[in-house]
């Protein structure tokens, strides 16, 4: 079954672009939340990850901070 993927990002962050590019290349559907314009999403991200750096991925409740390709692959099972 497809996993529920959310990416918390800012428009200006190079690593956020790369995470999203990586997911797109793997045909992984995801919800993209812009924490620069969406304060509620920003608070949610800080609460979930306990930190303030972007990008943050939430894959079925598993939180990954940064573009950690290996970990993302492992959690997604790809």
């Amino acid at each position, binding site marked *: 079954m497809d996993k529920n993927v959310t990416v918390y990002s*800012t428009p200006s962050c*190079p*690593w956020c*672009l790369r995470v999203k*590019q990586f997911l797109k290349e793997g045909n992984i559907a995801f919800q993209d939340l812009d*924490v620069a314009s969406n304060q509620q999403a*920003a608070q949610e991200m*800080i609460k979930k990850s306990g930190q*303030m750096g972007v990008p943050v991925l939430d894959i079925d409740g598993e939180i990954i901070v940064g573009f950690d390709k*290996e970990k993302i692959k492992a959690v997604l099972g790809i």
Partner: protein
Amino acid sequence: MLDLIVIGAGPAGITASVYAARKKMDFLVISKDIGGQAAWSGDIENYTGYQFISGPELASKFEDHMRQYDITVKDNEEVREVKKLDGIISVASDKSAYEAKTVIVASGKKTRELNVPGEKEFKNKGLTYCATCDAPLFSGKDVAVVGGGNSGLDAALQLTKIARRIYLVNIAPEITGDPVMEEQVRKSSIITVLNDTRVTGVTGDKFVTGISIKRNNKEEALAVGGVFVEIGLIPNSGFVKGVEKNELGEIKVNCRNETNAGGIFAAGDVTDVPEKQIIIAAGEGSKACLSAFRYLLQHN
């Protein structure tokens, strides 16, 4: 034993790899993060052939170019030591160990850290090295930007649209960044410039709540919810033993990218070549590979 190991896959390392592949050398690439600093750059408007391209896009084009060849790339692997013994160059990483006849060190630069108490603890918990990435998360907060050079001024100016109040903490007696940006900083009503001021610590609870600073020989506390460290870059050269470096830690190379140790070459931002530019790093990478190729012909 390999002909060549390329350390780093930024513009210099990737270009060296493309050349090595085309020379059909027996080699591999070890990289901590493919794309290197280029992937962190914002808008690039001075790489010939592209009137405009973003850093991540150019980095991904570099990577595609490299992967077009059948190259062994050890990604997410960090080199810990390079040394030459009895004509053999050994490379030890966090995952494995290798031997080669030649090495190209193209490991680039990394962000300089403050080296003060609290810095590691609060990294990403209010302290960041990437204003471009994380600034929007500091909406309405009082923040400190550390650094009076161009990247410090740039971060402070970006933050004027986001933060409530900005302290620009500068260790030098005067701003060293471009006068055009300095003027913009001076005009802003929410930026306070603190020259001749050193950050001595970062404090907080779960997240940053302040910094301690020292000026006029007096310690002061500054309440801030964010710290942006923008104090420049240092070369990733510490792992290379037995090669000459300059006072900045950059590896000394001649015009053929040779270091003082035969068989060890270096290219890009980790070297003492003047001007750190993507296009220069790429050119230096190609030159280093051709020099390594020639070295192998002479020493086989």
